[in-house]
Every structure is written in structure tokens, then in C-alpha cells.
């Protein structure tokens, strides 16, 4: 009972209070995006990125949801920005749940984030022009 669902670990607190990747991308170049929503009134997120063809050159998000959800989105952006595109397939969403100590009852929200990531991958695999 010591670890209650309402506790947030340091990483959550830091990502939540300084979400450097929240907001729009730098204007210019093609925009890839993935969007997902937990349920009608549930958590919602959109992931956005620029890519130079090899790497994710910039990554941003917008989100509505609980602190774990916002922190997870921020964490995901930090982890993926500047990484090779291939990294998108390596990325293990469960690691986010673990590192941010997201309580099990919020697993659905993490899966929502995964959905958005999948949508982003799909978006990246489609040729884009701005």
C-alpha cells in the first residue's frame, strides 16, 4: 500500500513540469503525425515530427490527460528525437511504463500513446509533401 497510484516519480515530475517537446514543430518541411484517443472523454495525444529521411530531426506532442500521460509523451519525444528512424521500431513502449512507474490501471493510456506512435510510423512510411 506504500506505493499508491497517486504518487509520481521524479522522472514524471520532471517531464510533466518541463515538457520541452510540447507544442508545434518548427515551421517548414513535411510534418508527420500520429494521433490517438483513449476513449470518448479519455486521454488524447498527437505526436508530430520532422524527418531528414534518416533521422527524426524534431519531435513534438500535444496532449490532454493525466500527469503520467503527459510525462510519457514528453519522455517518448525526448527518447526519439535525433534518433535514426529505425529506432521507431525498436522503441519499447513498456519501458516508458516502467521508467515512469505508471500504475497498472493507467496501462490503457500508455497503449493509447503506443497507438499514436504506430500512427506516426504509418505517417512516416507515406510519402509527404509540404
Amino acid at each position, binding site marked *: 500500500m506504500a506505493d499508491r497510484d497517486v504518487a509520481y516519480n521524479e522522472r514524471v515530475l520532471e517531464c510533466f513540469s518541463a*515538457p520541452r517537446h510540447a*507544442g508545434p514543430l518548427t515551421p517548414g518541411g513535411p510534418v508527420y503525425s500520429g494521433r490517438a484517443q483513449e476513449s470518448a472523454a479519455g*486521454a*488524447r495525444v*498527437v505526436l508530430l515530427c520532422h524527418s531528414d529521411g534518416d533521422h527524426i530531426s524534431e519531435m513534438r*506532442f*500535444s496532449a*490532454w490527460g*493525466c500527469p503520467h500521460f*503527459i510525462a510519457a509523451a514528453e519522455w517518448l519525444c525526448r527518447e526519439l528525437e535525433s534518433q535514426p528512424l529505425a529506432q521507431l521500431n525498436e522503441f519499447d513502449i513498456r519501458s516508458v511504463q516502467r521508467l515512469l512507474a505508471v500504475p497498472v490501471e493507467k496501462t490503457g493510456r500508455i497503449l493509447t500513446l503506443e497507438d499514436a506512435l504506430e500512427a506516426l510510423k504509418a505517417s512516416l512510411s507515406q510519402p509527404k509533401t509540404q
Partner: protein
Amino acid sequence: MVKAAANRFIYLDYAATTPVDLQVAEFMAGFLTREGVFANPSSIHAPGQQAARAVEIAREQLAGLLNVRPADLIWTSGATESDNLAIIGGAHYRGRRGKHLVTMKTEHKAVLDAFAALQREGFEVSYVAPNESGLVSMDVLRAALREDTQLVSIMYVNNETGVVQDIEAIGNICRERDILFHVDAAQAVGKVALDLQALPVDLLSLTAHKFYGPKGIGALYVANRPGCQVEPILFGGGQERRLRPGTLPVHQIVGLGLAAELAASSLQDNWLHMSKLRHRLLAGISQLPGLLVNGDESERSYPGILNISALGVEGESLMLALAPVCVASGSACNAKNAEPSYVLRALGRDDATAQSAIRFSFGRYTTLAEVDFAAARYCEAIVSLRSIAKGLE
């Protein structure tokens, strides 16, 4: 960014619980150890009798606050137990006359769950809806009453919104029909002037920790009039007129007693102080768009509770963003539950609006500076969370 003093919280959650008054805590300390009055007040030896006298003095202090006879007060472990004793015990007492009971959708869980237990026993319960500011209309109430209605339970000050029901009008309707009238006054006692000699109330619940007394002690007032009685729900040693058994927790009781006496002398000051804080907070956040006060904005509101929804903002994130300002989202009792508040839903708020609600509640120690800090922090948090969500539109 606004800064709070290191390691200090800005506590604006007095409706969840209050700290114990320093004088009260010191007084309680004299009833614990060997050096103090520690004996069992049921014991007939001298130290036992000394403890029993302390208990009776406390009963007189509480009786003074409510303007009732000390003998009409029963000690309990808090408002939850008082509510259960009043509602279940009252329904059982009146059960032979009829099986219909009335309450409101916006009552505390201790009331609603007690009624649910009675429903499982075969009682019929009507749950009256409030209007959108949280008040029950007398016409709606009258329409809910039946020939066989035996008990009505409607709270004084709502714990989530601060809305104050018209207890006198409700009580008069009940008296006319000889219906037992129970009032959960957990959020009113010690804060609102209450004269039970004048009010047509039969049963009234209270708990010390909402007015600077200790947690785990409360009382039930049982009016001394024909037909007004409850059956016990706990059984044992015969204490408290056989209505509530168990060794009397003397230190808790004297703490409640002194807190009651102190509250009695500060009711007016408290109301003024609360009003000032409320207006200051409202002024501090008035520039924000998309805010909605939950509850009544006219006079029928306890100014110490201010419940506000912010459109487009998620509640749990808002709570965290507000730290070190300590507030509640929904009722503290449901804090672990992510469900939107049923009280706000009953006021017609949709899920999202209910979920974005923050209850600010003020107390004796709240300063204008704290409220200013909280208002600034609130504005900052709303702006920031809305901007994080902006790209979703």
C-alpha cells in the same frame, strides 16, 4: 514563476480536514498519560469519575455551540458513523410505520451508502435531484414525499460545492408530516451559526476534524421529541444511552468539546474571513476564460468552499500543476477514484467539466497572501495545460 517557501504547502483543503487548534491539542494531551486524566469514564473509582466529568463538560460545550440539551448528544467516531446511526437507526426505528425514505443525489457517500444498505433491506429510497446550482426546491421535495415517508436526510453545507440548503424550510415540511429529518452538518458545525432550538431538525451529524478538533470523534444530536429516536447499529456496553457502545475516548471528546467552544466564539469572524478569501481568489483568476463556478453564486453558499471547473483542462494534471497548493478534486473521500464527481454530475456538469473541477477550501489560518499565491499558480497551470493540449484541436 511564483515561488512558495521551501518545504511548505499552501493548504487550501480545509473541507477535507482541518489541523487541530493548538489549544485543543494541548488540552487533549492532558487526558492521555499517567500524569493526566486517563482513566475509563465508566469506572466508578475517583479517577474514572474525573474522566466522566470531563466528558460531560465537553458535552455541555458542544451543546452550547448547537443550543441543545447536553443529554441529546451522542458521541460517535465521526460524521460517517453519525450518518449511519441516524439514517439506518432512524429508519429501523420508524420501519414499522413505513418503508419510504428521501434523500438527495448530492449527499455525502456516508449518507448515500447508508441508504443503499437500507434499500438492500427492503426500504424504498427516493433520491431528489438539485437544481443546477445544487439547491433542492421545496416543490421537488414535496413531490417526493409519500404517505409512508418516514425519514428525510438532506445535508447542510455541501462538502464539494459549499451550497447551503434551506434547512428550515425542509424541516418545516417534514414536521408538518411527522417525518424524521436528519441533517448531515459535517461541513456546517463550527462554521455556520446553528440554533437547533429554533431549527426543525431531528437528527444532526457532525465531526470534530472539520472545525479544528481531532479526527475520529463526532456526535449525533437526537432531538428530545416524541417519535424521534434511533435504534442502535453497534451493540455493547450500554454507554451513551445504549445508543453507542464502547469505551469513551476521553481525549478525543474533550478535544471536540473545546473545539466547539472555540468555534462558538468565532462564527462571525470566520464567515467574514472566508468571504474575503473567496472574493480575493475569484478576483485573482477572473482574467482566465473558460471557468465555471460549481455551486451557488448567490447567498446560499458557504464562502469557505469554492469549486471551479476549467474547460479543456484535465483534473489530475491540474492538481499536480498546482502543487504546492493543496486542494481537492471532487470530494476527498473519492480522491483515489478517478470517476468524475457524482455531485457535480448531479448539477448537470458533463464528465469533462466535472473532472476539471478543483475545490479550494479555506480555513482559519488561510491568509490573503496564500490565496494570491494560489490564484497565480492556478492561472499559470491552466495556461500551461491548455497550451500542452492546444495542438489537439
